């Protein structure tokens, strides 16, 4: 598994490692009667390192299967090497749209029959909420404020298409450099806007600093509403800002409060093992493992026939903590329900509660 264990995304790597270890522990470290060893390597937020570690998996460790990669540029960088090596790879985070689409000249990347994704495409967490706002929620105008990099820009673009398709109007946009130290100047600008609904994409430290600046300037009290793609208010952020994000509406394919049997079991098991609430990154890794598990069972543990294994993966269908999970046979991206969530404090912890749903969202694939 190639995950970040150092640098800014380390928390995601640790979260996914915890979920993977828990899954394997529950299965006695064996899937389909084959003992499983996982080799973890650090992607260190650098495509050159990611490429080198991928080569290690291919040439030195000779792995049967590869999973992981948090940062989209790293996924793009190793896509060709993985495809050429015919290594089956389950992407457990990076949401860059191109990874599971057909694109011209494969720029910035394109799908591969060996690459599956157990997380999401940024389209899936941005477009549906756009359409939902315009058609279901009756929002007429939105102002976008995103982090100025691949993910943020994709999210803003997809939200804009969804929202305008539903009849809404984007009144303007603002971008903050990735890793901005001070969010107050940006939120001050937002406060000068007439439009009260703000759609944002930030994650990690940026999301925390943004929410804190939002609170400091009393945006909610002045009638502004915070909306965004799910990572803006995921558990890694909520644990630090607490109730400051209350009322924020975001879209994601999971929430820790999701009320189904698998999620309850997953959250309970995770909490018991680690004394922590799981986050969406853990779910992504968990579902990846489950897909692999079921596919392995279908081929009776035989990983030597790659095409058969790929077909098995394409056919997996299971109930995951996020609901019904299956891969789109065309793109190998998950087909999943997207939930519209709202932040509330429950039992003393800030969590996302489900207030709406867009069912069975498929990535368009081009």
């Amino acid at each position: 598994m190639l995950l970040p264990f150092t640098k800014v995304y380390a928390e995601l790597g640790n979260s996914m490692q915890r979920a993977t270890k828990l899954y394997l522990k529950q299965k006695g470290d064996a899937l389909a009667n084959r003992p499983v060893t996982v080799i973890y390597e650090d992607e260190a937020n650098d495509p050159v390192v990611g490429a080198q570690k991928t080569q290690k998996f291919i040439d030195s460790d000779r792995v049967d299967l590869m999973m992981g990669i948090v940062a989209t540029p790293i996924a793009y960088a190793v896509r060709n090497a993985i495809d050429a090596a015919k290594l089956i790879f389950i992407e457990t985070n990076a949401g860059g749209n191109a990874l599971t689409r057909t694109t011209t000249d494969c720029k910035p990347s394109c799908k591969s029959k060996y690459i599956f994704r157990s997380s999401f495409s940024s389209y899936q967490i941005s477009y549906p909420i756009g359409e939902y706002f315009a058609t279901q929620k009756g929002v007429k105008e939105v102002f976008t404020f995103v982090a100025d990099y691949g993910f943020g820009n994709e999210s803003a673009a997809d939200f804009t298409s969804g929202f305008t398709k539903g009849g809404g109007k984007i009144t303007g946009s603002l971008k903050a450099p990735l890793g901005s130290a001070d969010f107050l100047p940006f939120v001050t600008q937002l406060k000068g806007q007439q439009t009260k609904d703000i759609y944002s994409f930030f994650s990690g430290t940026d999301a925390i600093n943004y929410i804190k600046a939002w609170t400091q300037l009393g945006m909610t009290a002045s009638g502004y509403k915070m909306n965004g793609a799910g990572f803006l208010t995921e558990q890694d952020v909520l644990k630090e800002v607490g109730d400051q994000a209350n009322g924020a509406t975001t879209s994601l394919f999971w929430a820790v409060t999701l009320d189904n049997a698998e999620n309850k079991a997953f959250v309970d098991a995770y909490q018991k093992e680690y004394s922590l609430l799981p986050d969406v990154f853990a779910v992504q890794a968990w579902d990846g493992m489950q897909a692999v598990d079921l596919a392995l069972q279908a081929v009776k543990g035989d990983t030597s026939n790659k095409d058969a294994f790929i077909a098995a993966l394409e056919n997996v269908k299971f109930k995951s903590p996020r609901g019904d999970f299956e891969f789109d046979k065309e793109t190998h991206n998950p087909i999943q329900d997207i939930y519209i969530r709202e932040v509330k404090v429950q039992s003393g912890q800030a969590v996302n509660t489900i207030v709406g749903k867009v069912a069975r969202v498929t990535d368009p694939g081009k």
Partner: protein
Amino acid sequence: MTPETAVVQALNGISFGALLFILAAGLSLIFGMMDVVNLAHGAFYMLGAYIALTIVQRTGQFWLALVLAPLLIGALGLVIEPLLLRRLRGRHLDQVLLTIGVSLVIADLIGLTWGREIRSIPFPAGLDHAITIVGGDYPVYRLFVIAFGAALAVVLAVVHRRTRVGALIRAGVDDAPMLAALGVDIDRLFAITFAVGAALAGLAGVIAAPVFGIYPGMDVDYLIYSLVVVVVGGLGTLSGAVAGSALIGPVDTFGKVLFPQFALALIFAVMALVLLMRPTGLLGRIRIAR
């Protein structure tokens, strides 16, 4: 931009500048007074923030962290200077390599000890609300930061100009052998100066962390900010750090808003521009090489 927004942005710029000054003060002190390039400055800042995090988590006392973290980091500095830096007086390249090494060790040990999650320190109770200024809310903590920065600058200036310690240190940089001949323990003086510089970095960690956040890699990001401020303002003087932060703070703030496409590069472009016009920074003095 409306006049009200402009006022708020100006406050944002000034408070950001104040944060930058508090951040850069330690670096400026060490370089200005001891002629030592301390690239572990960011790591001391980071360590201060993490120590504050633990103190606030355990006791909920921000003010305790504000006192304790700098003391602990200062103690660390007091150990590092004689042990590692003393023999490198005057050897800048070696100082660079050594302090990079120290920085790597500290940052990695922090990751191994505290974990590598994204954290944040809440604003201290009493300073976490907003007051009404020019018809809008403005966070009190930012005003506190401005006041704190100003106070810090005054204290450092007084110590530097008016006290015997300040005079001794200045003399020590210009002519260490002379001072030694006069019976002053120059080694102890330098160790204390380094400790103070480190403590200031730790202090910045406590003050700035609620605003900037705590995450792996913060040491590099804020070291770069500090270097820019100190170099722009002028190496070798405390007023340089003030000038540097007073320029960079508002420029960065207004730049982000007015020229978003250049926001990433803006402070570096400003630094390059300043150095072109005044190679030693805004208020820098050229030190005569021996």
